């Protein structure tokens, strides 16, 4: 369980705080989605979790224990994080890359043991990247790379996983495969916290949606509660409709054309 309590973050160069006292909880066994417009504070929340931005106030705790810099490696055994961007400097092999997921357990000294190999094998199996193991990570397609990153996070072996827009640049098939995998992880008992722009997919898959707007929570709850046209129009500042898709049994959002521009170009 990852719990953010009244988390406020202020960047030096900006007058407005990036987060104003945000509280949310990602429970085990659930897929919690964090959505909101660009710059609403989603990635800042993830960066605060790994200590890359200091908290102005509030606390972040994992399984009830507050996150502190001294216990960062212990935290990494419980929570795996797939950041929005990751640009490795060197062409490390996929096998070695996934094995780095065991760093929180091994540190600088310990050699990998049976439990480490088992965790790596399981992660490789779940993400179906067995055929990629001998390739350098620089020679993967976008979909393969996201699966490999997910494998690294699963190999960390914790029961919580945080992903910041893991399906950016992916086609429909690869995107769905990632969502299915995240659902499977949540069903297994993981706490999955997913930052995403894919409102329609999130509406179908997530147990809870938290909508951020300018560093504050604009709405939170079951998909049906958050996927309201009135709320989303205000937050995204764009005309849209939300319908109920009976085949999926989920709300579906359709953005409309901008009124002034639409008249002239269509």
């Amino acid at each position, binding site marked *: 369980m990852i719990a953010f309590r009244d988390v406020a973050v202020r960047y030096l160069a900006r007058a407005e705080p990036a987060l104003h006292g945000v509280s949310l909880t990602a429970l085990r066994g659930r897929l919690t989605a964090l959505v909101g417009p660009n710059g609403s504070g989603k990635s800042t929340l993830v*960066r605060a979790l*790994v*200590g*890359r931005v200091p908290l102005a106030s509030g606390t972040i705790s994992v399984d009830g224990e507050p996150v502190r*810099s001294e216990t*960062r*490696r*212990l*935290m*990494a*055994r419980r929570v*795996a*994080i*797939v*950041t929005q*961007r*990751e*640009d*490795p*400097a*060197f*062409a*490390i*092999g996929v096998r*070695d*890359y996934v094995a*780095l*997921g065991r*760093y*929180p357990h*091994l*540190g*600088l*000294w310990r050699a990998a043991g049976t439990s480490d190999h088992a965790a790596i094998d399981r992660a490789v199996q779940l993400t179906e990247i067995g055929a990629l193991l001998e390739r*350098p990570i620089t020679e993967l397609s976008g979909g393969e790379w996201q699966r490999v990153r997910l494998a690294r996070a699963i190999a*960390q072996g914790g029961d919580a996983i945080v992903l910041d827009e893991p399906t950016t640049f992916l086609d429909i098939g690869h995107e769905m495969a990632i969502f299915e995998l995240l659902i499977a992880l949540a069903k297994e008992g993981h706490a999955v916290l997913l930052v995403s722009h894919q409102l329609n997919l999130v509406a179908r898959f997530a147990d809870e949606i938290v909508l951020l707007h300018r560093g504050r929570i604009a709405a939170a709850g079951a998909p049906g509660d958050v996927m309201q046209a009135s709320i989303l129009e205000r937050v995204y500042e764009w005309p849209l409709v939300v319908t109920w898709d009976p085949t999926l049994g989920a709300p579906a959002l359709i953005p409309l054309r901008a009124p002034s521009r639409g008249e002239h170009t269509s």
Partner: protein
Amino acid sequence: MRASRWAGLIVLLAIVGVAGVMLGTLPLTPSQVLAGLLGTGDHTEVAVVRMFRLPRVVVAALVGAGLGAAGAALQGATRNVLAEPYLLGVSGGAAVGAVLAVAWHAPAVIVPIAGFGGALGAVALTLLVARAAGGRADARIVLMAGVVVGAFANAAIMVTLANAPANIVRNAVWWMMGSVADATWAQARWLSVYVIVGVAVLFVLARAIDVLALGEDTAAGLGVNVGAVSLAVYVAAALLAAGTVAAAGLIGFIGLLVPHLVRMAGARTHRAIIVGASLAGAALVVASDLIARVARPPAELPLGAVTAIIGVPFFLARLRRLA
């Protein structure tokens, strides 16, 4: 890296090492080298092998190993394939220390110590400048701070040498060009302890360097204390390079080039890259020193110039591959 390539690297180091003892103003056959080593040859051979060539080869190998490992660790931790230990202010600071020692007519034994002190001072200054700029562990800021400190060191050298007598300028410039011609066993002994400890420290840090190379956010998510580990790598690499500078002056391109060669040969994780860069760096400096001795006998070329002459075409080829 495949086992055959590791074996090839070790064989290569052995070959250049043996060649380094055989060749020179007085060429020796392998049997003469062996006799010299065992002390059974004639006096000249024994003296040449034991007192001059062997310590020279050993010091050259240690200098290369230190620079290669330091460069490999630094490129990994800064995620920058153009990083090298000299960039942290090591070369500029060492040159200032040595030039001041030469200009003040310090005894010859003081010059390397002054160079070492200058290197340490410059590295400390680089890290302080980076810290004052708000980026103690930020690789880009540390490297830029190193460039600034290096530029300042260059200015200090020019001011010192501008009005110095010709012989002092010549001595100072010679020192800056790098050489292992005056290597002694005493030097080889302290340098071996220094380089082995330094490379071992970097080897221990290698796994954290692998994680750092993925980017700072990912590294933090994997539980690496980005600031502390980066700083440890910078300090260890800079100290290692400073030690080699004290022994042999400035020998450019090794720290920059060798990690590229090792990665091209297939080393992927930093444990392999650091060990491989030590071996390859050692082989490259021993070979360069050999060329420095035999290219224009009886004159010796400056070792730093030879490594640069070898390094530039390698690096150009590498750039073509990257482009």
